[in-house]
């Protein structure tokens, strides 16, 4: 079913928030798709990087539920190729920050079985800690 996009003040606030966090003029993106074509992890994403940019332009908060920002490895291939000089990886980072600040998705370390803790990379644990505190 085709959903309608309603553009409200809330959408604009969301765009402005991400623009502020990322220090990018996201409205400048002309949707050429070079970021998506360049992204080494795009095949793992549910939404392409250029679509992420578009959804932020329109203030569509559904982007927060996408996997894309978590899959982004900040390799900056998109950044060095963007013909408009934008940095989509910073936008992904801003979305991650915003999500983290909501304190959602956190895990309780105590509930992780001991044998799993042994094989989990430390960085994953640190990251989990961060989710509690940011």
């Amino acid at each position, binding site marked *: 079913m085709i959903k309608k996009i309603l553009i409200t003040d809330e959408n604009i606030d969301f765009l402005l928030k991400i623009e502020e966090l990322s220090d990018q003029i996201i409205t400048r993106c*002309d*949707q*050429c*798709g*070079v*970021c*998506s*074509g*360049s992204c080494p992890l*795009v*095949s793992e994403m549910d*939404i*392409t990087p*250029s*679509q992420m940019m578009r959804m932020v332009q329109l203030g569509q908060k559904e982007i927060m539920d996408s996997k894309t920002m978590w899959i982004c490895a900040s390799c900056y291939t998109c950044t*060095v*190729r*963007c*013909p*408009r*000089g934008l940095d989509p990886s910073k936008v992904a980072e801003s979305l991650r920050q915003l999500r983290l600040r909501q304190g959602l998705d956190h895990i309780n370390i105590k509930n992780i079985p001991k044998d799993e803790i042994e094989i989990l990379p430390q960085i994953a644990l640190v990251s989990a800690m961060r989710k509690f505190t940011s």
Partner: protein
Amino acid sequence: MEKSNENIKIGVYICHCGGNISEIVDVKEVASFAEKQPNVVLVRDYGHMCSEIGQQLVIDDIKGNKLDAVVIAACSPHFQGKTFMNILEVAGLSPYMFEMANIREQCAWPHFNTPSDATQKAKYLTYIAIAKARLNKPLKKKIIPVGKNVLVIGAGIAGIQASLDLGDAGFQVYLVEKEPSIGGHMAQLSRTFPTEDCAACILSPKMADVSSNPNINLFIYSEIKNIEGYLGNFKVEIEKKPRYVNVDKCIACGICEEKCPIKNVPDKFEEELKTRPAIYTPFDFAVPNKNLIDPETCLRLTKGGKVCGLCEKFCPEGAIDFNDQPEKVGFNVDTIIVATGFDIFDATQKKVYGYGKYENVITALEMERMIVHAAEGNPIRDLGTRIGFIQCVGSRDEQVGREYCSRICCMYATKLAQLLKRSDPNRDIYIFYTDLRAYGKGFEEYYKRAQDTGVKFIRGRVAEAIEDSKTKKVTLKGEDTLTRQIIESEFDTVVLSVGLGLSETSNKITDMLKLAKSPDGFLQEAHPKFRPVDTLVDGVFLAGTVQGPKDIPDTVAQASAATARAIRLMNQGGYSKDPILAFVHEELCDGCQLCIKHCPTNAIKISSGVAKVNEVMCLGCGSCIASCPRDALDLHCYTNEQLLAQIESALKEKQDGQIRILVFADDVTSYRLADNVGTAKMPYSTDSIIIRVPSSSRITPKLILQAFSLGADAILISESEEKSSPFPHSIKVIGDNVTKVKDILTQIGVDKERVQFIQFVTVMLWGFVNNINNLADFARKLGPIPIQKRTELVENVNKRLFGG
């Protein structure tokens, strides 16, 4: 300084403007005030000064009362100033002995709700005009002699069109081309969009016309070595490169080419897809269609002695001349048309597309040549069935420092795609684009025709190209942004739609003529809307892609426009110029040269130890004056003496408790803006007095400080925004001047915000009003500058400004 104006007789006229002025301003009071002023021998007030009767009144008075100068207090000088100046000329006076007090647009109209203040202000404005008129000089318009010789640089389609237009109109054209044939890039093209005319077929008759036109002196294979001078007097030096073939004898029979043992020289005209011998003709419809020898590959010319020489031996006409030498030619021209064109973007810079590394990635210009040869039945290579076009290569891309759209690539790709598809319907052709710009006449229809032909358009910029090392096929990767799917597709041939940039040779000419560049790197026109083919150098015009990317029709239109603009200056044997020009008080000048670099047109030169102003090149902005530590530079019609007299008059009648704000307004924008505010009847502080100057860069730091010392409470320096100013350097000069003033104010303990610099456009009505009102409120809050500080401001002022 001359002071011979002591006994000058001035007539003053106050216009009622049919009530427009007299219903608000008490014109009788202004008249009786004017009567009391020195040198004023006659004052009249009249209903309509601009009417025939009003005009006759002035003429009769000038003759009957032997007036030397006339002041008319009426509307804006932009409204009827020209009419009144003509009256003076009719009556036998210099039109520059005229002054206008703008008591309508800048007094009665904006101050309509405070009539008594308006009357006061009208008196000051008249008083200021009288003070200036007293110091006027009977100047004459300068007649600049301009002959009928034109240099056209570059013989691409722009230069060809301009030369033909000028030659047909009877002007002498010197057409200089660096390549061995005329024709430029257009000669390389297959067909032209959107009509698909064969480029060579429509261009070659025009090329033939050039060589047969008796008014066109063609200098082919020649380089411009130097250009000096100015409108009406440009000295041009060129060097004709040696061809080593006598063009008068050569019949281009081709025997030499057959005999030449060197066969493998990459042919530039063929975009190096083919090779040619060391002796060659540029291309098959070249003008002139004569042979020449490439000295870098010819065996005889590289090795010397008696090596080879086969061409000489076999030439049936004896045309070969190994002793040919470069030849210097000099001539004078009156105007110049720069048509030096473009270079295509160097696609090797865009490494992700592999140009120069992958053999099946080619530029669109290479594709043009391939299509030409394929159509003639001699394909250069097999292009395969799957062909992909990548758009915006070297355009709209900050990664390669080119933000602009090259304008022609969408349509040439659409054209090439159709030609390829029609010559072999089995081909699959894809154009990867970001935005498809089909803006011109017939373009959209042409785009649609391509879609009908079966060309596929994919919306997405290609991210990268990868070559299969075995098959040499190229995979393009990108996003179809419409379906949000990633595309990876293999092509036999990939065509890069390369953008345009200013050509290498243009850079050289730009430096020689001191032309300005716009941020995109192309040459800048004098005004983006109204002077699109002029440059800021008088007599130098732009035609074609040297000013920005454009297609053939636009190039031809612009070439004809440049021609018309050049003819405008040349047709009457000379053109007249306002005498508002810089001049030098030679007794004060010590030849220090500080002024030279402040002149945007290089009009100042030092000769016999003093600065001399070239009146043809001078723009009359006055921005050089502030740079002179000895007050030796000045501007006719706006001399230091006159401006000081105006400032003094504006402040003289100021009472205790009153404030006075001086507004210096550039004539192009700010003064007209003030008129527009008046016409809109928008009130602003009557404590402001507007003083008209050609550019506010004329107002030196010294004058500003003098104005403060004479009692000004605040000063607004207003100037056209850079884009709309004819003096684009003025903003920087004013900025520097104002900074200097602010520094000195701070040193002496005067609030530095008393002087403000604002850039205007003519529609900023509220901006103008608010700025003046805010400044008036600010000055009122601060109160007057203490008298002792006022004297301090002008003590050792030159020393403070220039040091030592």
